[in-house]
């Protein structure tokens, strides 16, 4: 049951990310809700489930975005694995952990994306991408991560309480 709910949350987050999120940009930065959902789910669910969820989410993003395949698949899987590892194994499952881990992993994702853009010669201005795009986006993700983690926490606590 929680699997279906989680899948539904991922799908809704993708649809919102591609249709609504750009309208709530702050100083040009937008949150990456799909990434945030992967991270927060991984913090609650653990390393293995987080990696699988990241793999599935990244695969779906690659399929729907068109163009080059593989980058988002791998990045989301690594992010999910690391979020699960740090969240459930090291720092514990709580909203503060989710918020901080979301910010750090979002920034890491952004740095690697900026490097990928540089290497593929799509944009050589790494400084601009990091300072004006990725850093604000990571902060935005952190804030969103707090609320999304609370959502997952309530869903899973409610489910396990009833069962």
């Amino acid at each position: 049951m929680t699997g279906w709910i989680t899948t539904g949350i991922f799908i809704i987050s993708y649809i919102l990310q591609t249709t609504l999120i750009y309208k709530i940009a702050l100083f040009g930065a937008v949150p990456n809700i799909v990434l945030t959902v992967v991270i927060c789910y991984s913090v609650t669910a653990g390393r293995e489930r987080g990696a699988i969820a990241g793999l599935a989410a990244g695969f779906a993003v690659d399929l729907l975005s068109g163009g080059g395949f593989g980058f988002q698949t791998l990045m989301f899987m690594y992010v999910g694995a690391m979020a699960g590892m740090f969240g459930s194994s090291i720092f514990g499952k709580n909203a503060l952990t989710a918020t901080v881990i979301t910010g750090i992993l979002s920034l890491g994702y952004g740095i690697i994306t900026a490097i990928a853009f540089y290497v593929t010669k799509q944009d050589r201005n790494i400084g601009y991408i990091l300072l004006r795009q990725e850093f604000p986006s990571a902060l935005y993700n952190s804030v969103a991560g707090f609320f999304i983690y609370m959502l997952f926490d309530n869903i899973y606590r409610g489910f396990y309480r009833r069962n």
Partner: protein
Amino acid sequence: MLFDFLKKKFLAFIIMITLIVGVISAVNNIWFNDKTEKVNMISDATGIVISPVQGAFTWVLGNIGDIFNYFGTNQKSNEENAVLKKHVVELERQLLEMGTYKDENNRLRELLDLKLRNNNYETVGAEIISRDINNWSGILKIDKGTINGISKNDVVIENTGLVGYVTDVGTTWANITTIVAPGSNVSCILPRTGEIVMIEGSVSDNRNGTCTMSYIPSESTIAVGEAVETSGEGGIFPKGIFIGRVEKLSTGKNGISKEAVIRPTVNFKILREVLVIKMSE
């Protein structure tokens, strides 16, 4: 049981998936991407399912936005402003067209894309239903695909100017790479001087809705306000599609050539409807 296995062999699992995805990615990007007109079946099927939902969300959000705009601003002034803006754009287009006709000779007329100027190309209207997940990759998705006659590399325009071109196409959807997207390159011409230049997109350009024109010869007489249109070179964009105007001029990074910021006439932040030119026809 699967997760018990993963707990024991987690690192091996990660390495195995990395290798598999790496191989698939290499095969897809090197062998299939440029050789196929349509996306793979799984992408297509996923897009067919998701696109109508994205379209519905965009339609609802767009109309809600319109309602707030209606109550939040002076409606009559807005309507007059919109009419006047369209009139100005049309006048500018006519002025540009007259200027180009004046400079043409008979040999160039045969080479020009007269079909486009005389609107003989078949076009398909489409709506923007979603943007890319990163929001700064400059990729838009439309609600038309191969079923509507759209194919890869079809040029996409709006009534004011060039939008981009189709990079991926499914049965009922297609992805457009805009001219402000990182990695985008468009060969252009300055109609007044006849200079051929290149404009590029980048992350900052996509964010600001501009394009960058680099490596302009220092002896060029390019000026602020100068019109820019497609040159017809490069194989994708036919000649004569209006792009925008020079907004700012500066010295290039090498200290010798000039660099210009181009402001396209298309506002990519609020773009909702486009026309796809069926280049294959």
